[in-house]
């Protein structure tokens, strides 16, 4: 089936080429350009001046603080989901995961509305807001890891030791690598974030890149500044992936650990969950709602931002469709690859997803802003779609690969033996089994694309805008209620698909 001219080889090769073009080439081109550019040597000094050392410290503190706090909050929640019998668990999980999908700058705006004090423009407050935005990653990882622990291992221990000791000595070491990997990814996502530090005026690398590019009109300096951030991101991501190897995505197991007698933790676990959901989601959304009451003219608001809203909806839908199509072929290739190749692809996907939006923005401008025919796309709305392809294809491929792994290769072999071609096998046998995964991926990519700011703010063509870019530009020169209304709209559009995902997962459970 892997012959040179087989449909499978052609499809996977085409997807691979597209992946390289959209996701890998811009970054590689930027790195090479920054090295060979005539001004590179002079701009290399920007890495070493005292301002950069300060930025480095701020960036490290932002990442480290967020990773620690998100782990401290997320891991107990995840372990509770995996080990304690709780009412309304799916609903609680969705509520607690929701902050991860709401754009971080919306969270930042909401917290600014909540606590209108000078303290908000500080590193600790940026850490707090990013913790609220990123703890779901630690939570979901810890839950998946705890569910992945073979129940017999805990059962064997529970014959000789009380629940607390079993959790400490058996469960914790087994989920430890996953928790550490998640903490490292949170670190990377925190140092990659642009919206929160920009909003709270905390100078870090991402804001400095934006300033160099958009305010100082110094692309060479901006490009040079991306390199340490890019290398740090890639390095940490690779370490985190190596910690969990090919166990990145584990299958759900039945609720293990019932025998551990954690029933008495039900009350505290529920309290922690409801408290976290209230602070992480309820409080910020309520703050935005209370600000929105001050909107003087909805007509004026919609007239000013209607086009940006429409652009965002359209472009996010186009981006989600292209990304999920490309990711389908990539996910298939990853799921059927040899173990070593699969691990390498996982690492590449995670690393590319973690690359900061501002870095991706600079890289896309470097590649597509050319005087030749290549530059035809530059200055058009297609740049937004290129941003979505570059940023979200790796994540989508990773999720779909997990879906493909549920379909045993023997099913394809059985179809092949029956005389079916590969395309027919995919269309009739394999892909139909993944239609829910595919739908979920589309919704996730749409949600992320709809909230994308870091790269979009750099590639936005003159006279065009998306909703996140519109919100970001209005922050400084529009009434607060107007900004809050747009931010709330942003959050609503994100939360609605989340409710749809909950519905899909609920249907799956019923089946």
């Amino acid at each position: 089936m892997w012959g040179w001219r087989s449909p499978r080889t052609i499809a996977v090769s085409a997807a691979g080429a597209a992946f390289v073009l959209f996701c890998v080439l811009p970054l590689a081109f930027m790195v090479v350009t920054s090295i060979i550019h005539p001004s590179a040597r002079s701009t290399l000094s920007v890495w070493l001046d005292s301002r950069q050392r300060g930025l480095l410290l701020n960036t490290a503190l932002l990442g480290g603080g967020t990773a620690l706090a998100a782990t401290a909050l997320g891991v107990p929640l995840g372990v509770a989901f995996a080990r304690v019998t709780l009412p309304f668990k799916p609903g609680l999980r969705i509520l607690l995961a929701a902050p991860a999908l709401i754009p971080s700058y919306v969270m930042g705006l909401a917290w600014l509305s909540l606590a209108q004090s000078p303290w908000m423009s500080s590193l600790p407050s940026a850490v707090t807001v990013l913790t609220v935005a990123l703890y779901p990653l630690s939570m979901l990882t810890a839950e998946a890891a705890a569910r992945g622990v073979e129940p017999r291992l805990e059962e064997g221990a529970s014959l000789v030791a009380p629940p607390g000791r079993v959790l400490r000595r058996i469960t914790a070491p087994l989920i430890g690598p996953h928790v550490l990997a998640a903490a490292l990814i949170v670190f990377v996502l925190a140092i990659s974030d642009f919206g929160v530090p920009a909003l709270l005026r905390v100078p870090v690398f991402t804001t400095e890149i934006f300033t160099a590019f958009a305010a100082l009109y110094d692309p060479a300096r901006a490009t040079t500044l991306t390199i340490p951030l890019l290398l740090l991101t890639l390095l940490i991501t690779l370490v985190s992936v190596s910690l969990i190897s090919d166990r990145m995505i584990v299958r759900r197991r039945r609720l293990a650990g019932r025998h551990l007698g954690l029933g008495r933790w039900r009350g505290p676990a529920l309290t922690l969950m409801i408290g976290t959901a209230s602070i992480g989601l309820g409080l910020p959304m309520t703050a935005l709602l209370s600000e929105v009451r001050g909107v003087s003219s909805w007509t004026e608001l919609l007239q000013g931002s209607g086009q940006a809203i429409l652009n965002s909806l359209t472009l996010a839908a186009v981006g989600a469709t292209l990304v999920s199509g490309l990711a389908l072929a990539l996910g298939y290739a990853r799921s059927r690859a040899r173990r070593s190749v699969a691990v390498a692809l996982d690492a590449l996907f995670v690393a590319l997803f973690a690359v900061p939006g501002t870095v991706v923005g600079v890289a896309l401008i470097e590649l597509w802003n050319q005087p030749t025919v290549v530059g035809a796309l530059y200055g058009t709305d297609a740049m937004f779609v290129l941003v979505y392809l570059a940023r979200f294809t790796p994540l989508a491929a990773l999720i779909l690969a997990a879906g493909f792994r549920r379909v045993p290769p023997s099913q394809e072999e059985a179809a092949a033996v029956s005389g079916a071609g590969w395309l027919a096998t995919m269309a009739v046998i394999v892909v139909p089994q993944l239609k829910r995964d595919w739908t979920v991926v589309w919704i996730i990519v749409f949600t992320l694309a709809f909230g994308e700011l870091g790269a979009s703010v750099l590639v936005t063509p003159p006279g065009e805008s998306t909703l996140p870019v519109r919100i970001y530009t209005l922050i400084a020169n529009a009434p607060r209620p107007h900004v809050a209304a747009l931010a709330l709209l942003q959050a609503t559009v994100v939360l609605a698909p989340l409710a749809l995902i909950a519905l899909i997962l609920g249907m799956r459970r019923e089946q």
Partner: protein
Amino acid sequence: MPPLLQLLQVTKNFGRHFAVQAFSLEVEHGESVALLGPSGCGKTTVLRLIAGLEEPDAGEIWIAGRRVANAGGNVVPAYQRGVGLVFQDLALWPHLTVRGNLAFVVASTSTAKHQRTERIDDALRRCQVDLRLADRYPHELSGGEQQRVALARALVGTPRLLMLDEPFSSLDHELKVALRTELVALRTQMQLTMIYVTHDQADAEVVVDRTVTMREQRSA
């Protein structure tokens, strides 16, 4: 003296599936009993109920004259029942060495710290595990070595009841016979009270004093 183990009309359902229905069993001190029966008849569930890993829906379980479980649930938690269990898949803790696996069990007993090493070595020797393997991790051992370590781990806590859930099912015939012989010798030497789950009649006849045959359970 009451029997070491009593199961009185114990029932366990998983949803609409009757795993165990009104099952009774008595095991005397020093006796070894085999639970025989086809797959799905509830043999493993009986072991899990005795160990405290499942709760009965009806009936009572008594160990050494103490009621440990009834229809209301487990009265005595698993770790206080003094039961050792060798799982079918062994369930050796992969992040701990052989010594670490046994040390976790010994640390849960009242053994003085300076005696723990001696006790671990003794258990390994009894189960014919080469002490040079003590610092290896489970995945670095052969199937037979893993089997012996699992047995040593179950014995090092000096349980009053040792239970084995088809422990040799994944081994080739020669190794199975060798380990079975070692188990019989160990049982005699240590005067173990034992429940041995198998679906192999010949296997049971070699290892135990008495066999109890379970029937296939049905769904509601």
